[in-house]
């Protein structure tokens, strides 16, 4: 299945990507998706592991939320608007 993934703020800047589309064979949680994606960026992954916020289709979700085909997933640093 096909998942669109968005990165924001420092996270996006660090991995030099703001958006990717991923083909994944099985359903998995947003938390696992993040861990898998961060394998190439180990120190970054560890830094953000406990602080990252997850959104699926513009709604914040917990790390065990399971993605489905066509979802738009966002990995977000803690918000700092205002």
């Amino acid at each position: 299945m096909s998942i669109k993934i968005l990165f924001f703020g420092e996270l996006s800047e660090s991995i030099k990507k703001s958006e990717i589309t991923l083909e994944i064979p099985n359903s998995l949680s947003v938390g696992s998706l993040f861990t898998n994606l961060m394998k190439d960026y180990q120190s970054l992954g560890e830094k953000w592991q406990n602080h990252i916020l997850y959104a699926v289709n513009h709604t914040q979700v917990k790390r065990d939320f399971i993605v489905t085909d066509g979802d738009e997933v966002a990995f977000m640093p803690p918000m700092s608007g205002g």
Partner: protein
Amino acid sequence: MKYLTKQKICAQSLSIKQSHPNCGGLCTFEGIVRNHHNGKSVKKMEYQAYEVMAEKELSSLIAYIQNKWPMCNVDLIHRIGNLEIGDVAVAIAVWAPHRKEAFQACEATIDRLKKTVPIWKKEFYTDGNNDWVICTHQSE
């Protein structure tokens, strides 16, 4: 874009859209780019948003506040893009029949906005460095 804009903003531009003859108090808040943060000298700021979600969260935020303070009328706007010192990043206006509710609802709006709306800011310092702001959600 309804609540986000790349143009200059101010609370007054919210006020003039509104007329609430039953309201005796208007409390506004403007978050302004200041020239220092955590002891560093700031030159300018860049605000980035997850725009679709931010619009949705700002709309939900207004609904949440108006549900908690049913007599209040809330309007707001948040700027994104490049901001200079003194520029307004966010403007909030709350009309209420009585002033206490206006102050409470306005402060609750900016407090909650900082926690729920997917916007991030990067500070550019006068020494040439820059940093994304990591928000502790204390008073700041």
